[in-house]
């Protein structure tokens, strides 16, 4: 049963990713991405990662993609324009993608599941609850990394505000 579910999810994720890339209409691309995110969050659910599943929907589907839609709506879309399907340098790109694929396969062949570190065992996660254990580790052991990520995001926000602010007369 679980294998069937995983097979369906993997297939749906791959297909919706392909549709997102290939569809001509940008709004439809964004919607295929939404389908992809929903399936991804179900995949998290099958791994007992309910917190990640909810965050996946709230952050990616609920916020990021809506902003994408916003941007897509605000730029002027013309469906009639048909660009050539391949750039001139496509053999090079093909070789690059192929070598990446080979690297990925080579990486997967030597895959060894990581050993459990500290209290992060599957049993403990099932018992205490995924959210709680995640919070404890995030705010106790990895607090430095967490704070650095926060500062980086703050810098990005400030940068965006500085870039788009309106200059008053005489400031230039």
């Amino acid at each position, binding site marked *: 049963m679980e294998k069937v579910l995983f097979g369906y999810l993997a297939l749906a994720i791959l297909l919706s990713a392909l549709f997102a890339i290939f569809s001509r209409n940008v709004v439809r691309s964004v919607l295929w991405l939404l389908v992809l995110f929903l399936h991804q969050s179900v995949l998290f659910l099958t791994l007992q990662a309910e917190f990640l599943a909810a965050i996946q929907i709230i952050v990616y589907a*609920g916020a990021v993609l809506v902003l994408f839609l*916003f941007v897509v*709506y605000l730029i002027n879309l013309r469906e009639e324009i048909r660009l050539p399907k391949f750039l001139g340098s496509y053999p090079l790109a093909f070789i690059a993608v192929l070598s990446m694929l080979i690297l990925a396969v080579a990486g997967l062949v030597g895959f060894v599941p990581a050993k459990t570190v500290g209290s992060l065992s599957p049993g403990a996660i099932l018992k205490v609850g995924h959210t709680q254990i995640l919070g404890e580790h995030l705010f106790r052991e990895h607090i430095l990394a967490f704070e650095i990520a926060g500062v980086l995001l703050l810098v990005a926000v400030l940068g965006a505000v500085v870039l788009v602010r309106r200059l008053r007369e005489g400031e230039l």
Partner: protein
Amino acid sequence: MEAVLKMATPWLILILEALVLLVVALLHVAYTTYAERKIIGHMQQRLGPNRVGPRGLLQPIADVVKLVAKEDIVPSGADKSLFYLAPFISLVAGATSLAVIPVWEKFALANVNVGLLVILAMSSLSSYGIILSGWASNSRYAFLGGLRASAQVISYEVAMALSLVGVMLMAGSMNLSEIVKAQVASPFKIYAIPQIIGFFVFMVSAIAETNRTPFDLPEAESELVAGYFVEYSGIRFGLFYLAEYFGMVVMSALAVTCFLGGWAGPFEIPGIPFFWFLVKLYALIFFYIWVRATLPRYRYDQLMGLGWKILIPLALLNIVITGLIKVLV
């Protein structure tokens, strides 16, 4: 055969429970529209609907019959598949949230550990219905309404989520049943008293999240005709209406669960364990209607200013205060 039956029984019971919940919720939604027309009527010195059935009680059913019988028009330039899909996204997202709300101690359709997050996720998904309907209709009014709605829903979602963080901190859980139990065990019995700032922010942003007056700018009829669903007719228009009232019921139920002590009451009513839940729910729905009859619509920049400059800082302040108290006590 027997083994299959044994395996299927829990699923069948679950489906049955879901159906019962859905039907009861739909009845509530239908009669919320009736209550709204009746209450606003009396507040404005009118009678409200009183022709169909005794005291107009059959009015919602007559409305549904009328909507189903009407012609279903699709604008010629519309993106058909998205146009058909949009109302269902709104409705399904609203109805799914009902599954995690504990109506009483032993009845929550899905007792999820991150119930609060599920509701937030669903309410963020319901904005897709509005945005897509605005875009797929291929109409200026609908498009403007859709854009307004998406900006409004994103902004107020932040305030709503932050206002619920205080509740999570106090209860130490995101499971809605656990939150109710923690409330009953707390000294005030309900979180609306210690979390008064959070409760205020939640109620205001819940009204904005469901696009109701005074924040009904996405459908402001004086400027946008009817906003995002202006091109919809017949039962598809009805589905949008249904989704709006579903949102209202869900938000009220969430407020009852998180701030007003859920199914717990001053004394037990024998035989009806969900009595107090319903009383609180009806009181909040009445509050929603009352607000609609009382307040005029905001201007759009005022709405954004209120969300970002007042409600979000207030919610953050509430988190800081709650955290401090939690650390000190």
